[in-house]
């Protein structure tokens, strides 16, 4: 009995029994725990058989000598491919560092517990089901968590933005900025907001109110305020209805005094009508209240930009 620790039988070596050659080595079988060769697969007359390494008497470059007679060889169990896994089909660390079997393959026995196909399918299904059971209850809380601030109710407060005495002339855009203080999650913040107020001439007023009074509603459709054509002052939201930039009152080479947005070059006349550029709708009129002393108050409504119709979002 030879010492078989670290044995590296050469593939294609001739296999000899005590009474002469019987075939060649076609593969090797390794023990997946000790990472040592446990059997060689001997191909003899077209059949492959598993020969335990203990049967090997000696091995050199080209020959493996067995300590049995050729008549005993058919007694070794046949090599059934399906009962084994090649080293390419399984993850056994260091196996290929320890044993070299080119140009053949190293095989390890297919574990007994892994052969039942029904259990495999069951486990796949069960794993998927558990994944879904863990993930699914998580979806709703997470969605609610991230959506919490997304659909805040509209703010219908009135803001004092200045006095009409600032407006010296009809049909001129006058900017009114005001400090809007509000709660932003846990912060108490103040922002500079920006609106435009026009003292409209009768012609401009007619243009603005061409479809009648302008009604403003809250989330559920209740009327919050109605602007009437009897008030000659008109406030526009400072947000450009194209894509939300801040527009300005500028003089234009050919069109005279206009509202012009520097972002995408939308141009509006004093009544807010689109004269040129990509804007899809006129400037947004805001609810306006004028006190007897000329104090201007507005509701700082925000509409979605880029829509033909006004869609209130804040």
């Amino acid at each position, binding site marked *: 009995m030879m010492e078989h620790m670290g044995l590296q039988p050469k593939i294609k070596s001739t296999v000899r029994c005590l009474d002469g050659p019987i075939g060649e080595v076609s593969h090797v079988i390794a023990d997946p725990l000790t990472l040592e060769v446990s059997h060689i697969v001997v191909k003899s007359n077209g059949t492959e058989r598993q020969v335990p390494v203990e049967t090997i008497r000696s091995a050199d470059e080209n020959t493996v000598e067995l300590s049995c007679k050729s008549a005993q060889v058919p007694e070794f169990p046949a090599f059934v491919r399906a009962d084994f896994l090649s080293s390419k089909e399984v993850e056994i660390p260091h196996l290929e560092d320890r044993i070299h079997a080119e140009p053949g393959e190293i095989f390890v026995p297919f574990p007994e517990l892994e052969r039942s196909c029904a259990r495999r399918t069951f486990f796949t299904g069960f794993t998927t089901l558990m994944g879904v059971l863990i993930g699914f209850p998580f979806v709703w809380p997470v969605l609610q968590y991230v959506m919490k601030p997304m659909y805040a109710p509209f703010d219908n407060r009135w803001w004092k933005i200045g006095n009409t005495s600032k407006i010296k002339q009809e049909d001129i855009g006058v900017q009114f900025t005001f400090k809007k203080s509000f709660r932003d999650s846990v912060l108490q913040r103040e922002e500079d907001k920006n609106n435009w107020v026009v003292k409209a001439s009768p012609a401009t007023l007619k243009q603005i109110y061409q479809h009648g009074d302008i009604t403003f509603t809250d989330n559920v459709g209740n009327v919050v305020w109605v602007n009437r054509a009897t008030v000659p002052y008109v406030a526009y939201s400072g947000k450009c209805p194209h894509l939300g930039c801040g527009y300005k009152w500028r003089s234009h080479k050919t069109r005279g005094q206009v509202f012009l947005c520097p972002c995408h070059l939308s141009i509006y006349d004093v009544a807010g009508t689109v004269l040129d550029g*990509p804007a899809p709708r006129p400037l947004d009129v805001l609810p306006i209240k004028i006190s007897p002393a000329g104090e201007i108050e507005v509701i700082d409504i925000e509409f979605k930009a880029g829509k033909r119709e006004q869609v209130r979002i804040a």
Partner: protein
Amino acid sequence: MNALFQQVYDFVEERIGLKTLEAKLMKEPIKGGSRWAYVFGSVLLFIFIMQAITGMLLMFYYIPSADHAYASTQFIIHEVDYGWYILSYHFWGSSAMVVMVFAHMSQVFLWGAYKKPREMVWLVGLALFGLVMAFGFTGYLLPWDQRAYWATTVGVEIMDKTPVIGDFLARFLKGGPTPGQMTLSRFFVIHVMILPGALMGLAGLHLFLFRSAGPAGPFRGTPDELKAKTDFFFPRQVWKDIMAMGVVFLIISTLALIEPVQLLEQATPDPGDYHPEPEWYFLFLFQLLRWKVFSGEFGQFLGAIAIPGLFMLLLVALPFIDRNPERNIFKRPIALLCWAVVMIGIAVLTVSAILNREFLD
């Protein structure tokens, strides 16, 4: 010392096969030899690593709150030693990233390297392109100055025009109906957590797929010529890569030095005298939306969503449409023409956006 090093090396080698790993990483044969044209991918990785490092450093002082973002950024620029350099490096690094992505994609396109069997490398690359643009978009809100505020306002309004999910997407990003603290929080977490995680994962996948498919090599030359010139990734290609990284580092640092970041006024819904404008690499899209053809609700959808979306879809479909195995760009006139048209188009739109500035003042 050497003996100790050897011991540590052997210890690791025995456990994880360091030599094999080294061979896998470094000894990749490059068909037709190393080239300067192949440096872009490595340079992108380098720029990303530098962005990650400078980004982490910025977070030492940056406070992601609407109250303090602006002041803490000013603090970084004006009071922290070399804060101006770290921030300006990060700023110019982002531009370098975009430039390098375009260079990398152009090289792959012109070399026909997206063709079989490298389709998956190309697809993951396109996802990475999207991530780089998303990095840029989420990053410049963080200083909370006027540029930041308006670019975000307009950018989110554009996303709002996406069919079906647009409104949800815009509200999700803004964390509400209007931009505010929630917007800053969300952009911050997307910029410093979600995108870096996604980019690292996808870049790893990109490299894995690239190594699995192998480099495409030059588009001309007989197999014998290619074999004669073949060398390993290390040392010649690594040398070219590191030289390119050095040059890029120098350029970014120089830009940071001569053109350091300067903040505009603090963000507020009143633009004052400021003419809102996005970062230069979004200028072509910005200019496109000024066109009369893209006016109105539908025109805007066309210009802001449909055309960029279709262009990306076309890039996704490219390796499946263009099945001709010919890789030589001089024998692919349509491909060359398309590339030139896209590049010239972007250049012309960008320049006209810059020229338009004058008209505004």
